[in-house]
């Protein structure tokens, strides 16, 4: 019965705070409304600078063909290679195409003619793909016996890929990190000593800390599903029950981790730095932004210890591809192991005596 009052206390503390409830509400909305638009790695609308030294029908035709493609935007015409390079260095062009003099004459005589494509490849994917698209347009081999079919994400919409991933981040922040900060702050303020001298059992105390954030987490997750449908028209292909089940296990694991960190930190500063570090590592090594399979092998081994990686896989596979229980059983089992191990550690390392 004790737990009812403790939970009531936690909720009161949460809503009394002027900053937290507002942030808990605004943050998911910002994440769902703004972030998916920014998260886009498509190679499209590359700025092209053409140096046409030929000025012939052929060169004109080439340029028209390039302009007709969706990948390139002709932004400037320059007279010399040096001027073109200047455009690239100033960041006004991503690629330059230099057509040599007498190009048309060579081609009509059937002699091979060389054209130069230079691409700013600081972003390797952009430079590599862009230059090779441009090369295939210049070569004129658009006919191919290879056809490509994309499953699941028919419109090649990056937002569909990011939206479920962002939900994973939200759960991580709300259910893993806020309760931990809460525990450490009681430590630093000293109120935890008052709880320690009461007959409150340590399980009950911890549970009372976690339950409000779980509730908040699930409310936020549900809001996100509604927002995803209302703003982008995305509905999960797979079953919502599978996603929620995955979320329950994941939230357990993250809450456990948060408690472990808070148990081992003396001051809030330490707890926050460690948590922040974990958070950044989890996010950047989860496959959310860049795929795990692009990492070097040793880094892929490290990601195996990252609960967020499994959850992002779960939510993306179910949301976008419609995977079922059996498809994601491995991920769910891994999350279960994390939840069990971290919570055991949390309970063992929590001391009621100061």
């Amino acid at each position, binding site marked *: 019965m004790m737990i009812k009052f403790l939970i009531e206390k936690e909720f009161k503390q949460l809503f009394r705070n002027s900053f937290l409830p507002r942030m808990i509400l605004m*943050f998911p909305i910002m994440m769902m409304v703004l972030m998916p638009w*920014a998260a886009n790695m498509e190679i499209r609308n590359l700025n092209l600078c053409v140096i046409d030294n030929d000025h012939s029908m052929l060169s004109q035709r080439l340029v028209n063909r390039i302009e007709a493609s969706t990948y390139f935007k002709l932004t400037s015409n320059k007279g010399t290679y040096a001027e073109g390079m200047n455009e690239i260095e100033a960041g006004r062009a991503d690629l330059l195409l230099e057509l040599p003099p007498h190009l048309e004459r060579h081609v009509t005589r059937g002699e091979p003619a060389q054209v130069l494509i230079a691409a700013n490849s600081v972003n390797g994917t952009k430079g590599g793909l862009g230059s090779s698209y441009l090369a295939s347009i210049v*070569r004129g081999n658009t006919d191919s016996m290879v056809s490509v079919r994309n499953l699941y994400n028919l419109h090649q919409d990056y937002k569909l890929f990011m939206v479920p991933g962002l939900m994973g981040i939200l759960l991580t922040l709300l259910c893993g990190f806020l309760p931990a900060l809460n525990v450490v702050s009681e430590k630093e303020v000293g109120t935890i000593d008052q709880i320690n001298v009461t007959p409150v059992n340590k399980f009950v105390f911890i549970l009372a800390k976690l339950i409000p954030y779980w509730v908040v987490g699930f409310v936020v997750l549900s809001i996100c599903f509604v927002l995803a449908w209302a703003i982008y028209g995305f509905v999960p292909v797979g079953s919502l029950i599978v996603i929620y089940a995955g979320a329950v296990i994941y939230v357990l694991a993250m809450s456990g981790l948060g408690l472990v960190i808070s148990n081992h930190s003396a001051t809030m500063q330490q707890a926050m730095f460690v948590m922040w570090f974990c958070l950044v590592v989890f996010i950047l090594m989860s496959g959310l932004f860049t795929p795990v399979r692009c990492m070097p092998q040793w880094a892929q081994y490290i990601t195996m210890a990252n609960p967020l990686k499994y959850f992002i896989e779960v939510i993306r596979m179910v949301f976008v591809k419609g995977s079922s229980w059996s498809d994601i059983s491995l991920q769910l089992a891994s999350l279960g192991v994390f939840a069990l191990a971290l919570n055991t550690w949390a309970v063992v390392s929590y001391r009621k005596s100061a």
Partner: protein
Amino acid sequence: MIQFYSFVKKEFRHIFRDRRTILIMLGMPIVQIILFGFAISTELNNERVAVLDPSHDVLTHRITNEINASEYFSVVGNVSNADEVDAGFKKGNIDMALVFSPKYASKIPNGESHVQLIMDGSDPNMATTAAHYATSIIGDASKEQPTHVQNGIIPNIQLLYNPQMKSAYNFVPGVMGMILLLICAMMTSISIVREKETGTMEILLVSPMRPINIILAKMVPYMVLSFTNLLTILVLARFVLHVPIAGNLILLLLISLLFIVVALSLGLFISTITQTQVAAMLVSAMMLMMPTMFFSGMVFPVENMPEPLQWLSCAMPARWYIQAVRKVMIEGVGVRYVLTEIGVLLGMAVLLLGVSLKLFKNRLA
């Protein structure tokens, strides 16, 4: 001046007294730059391919072998129908399927044979890249002579600055921006708010020191720490990640120093608008970290964003820093190409510092 000096000394003591924090502040950037420098990558490697080959002839075997031989793909198995492909995608065992039409080699003369690449399109970027590479490998493998001469024009491709298309060249400047910004802003804001929360700030404020000096004394040690971090990051980037420093090192250091000042002022600003450490942490971690990751061009190119978000990204200090570092460090261009970035960062530093000093004084009255 002696007063100021003793305040700086006090701050250094605060930092060095707490072993764990100093370890985190100096060690964290090292771990992060190494981890992320290697791990944040969009280079295609070992895409898992399933093959659906009803014809099993010389040509399909040659194409399959060519695909398998490339560093980008590895063939993980054969499937016999399209349902198995779908099941493989749903389990996440394969990333791509290579489907040949029946009697592939014998129907080539009629032009009836074709190859279909079925991609797991959930990640559009990877699907497009992989499909593109696979298409060109298949094209090469199925021609008798692997030349592309069709209309006589031979494109010579020159990949500037990053001929091996290494992802690190693109992402290391981004990671630098993120680490410096977050460490500086978070450290300063938390350390100032901490004094507020524990009440020691009152004691400092009644001392004969002027508030501006208290603040500056707080910033000096973090400036030193951040600069140490910057040097370690640069050394690691150059010698461990093998990212070249193509441009002027002095220019790079000066821009970084300017960025550190911006980040510290941002921390100062956060500390004046928050009252508790939790709030300061949440503001710097959530309101700063997430937008920086998304809108600064660190991972996602700014030019891909819709117009309003591009304006928003202009408000991110990291965006300008990352842009400048990419230009100076990777492209190696001179100072006249980064004047805009320097100007914007300078403006941000002045603005943030001015506003937070004003707010800080108000609080005193």
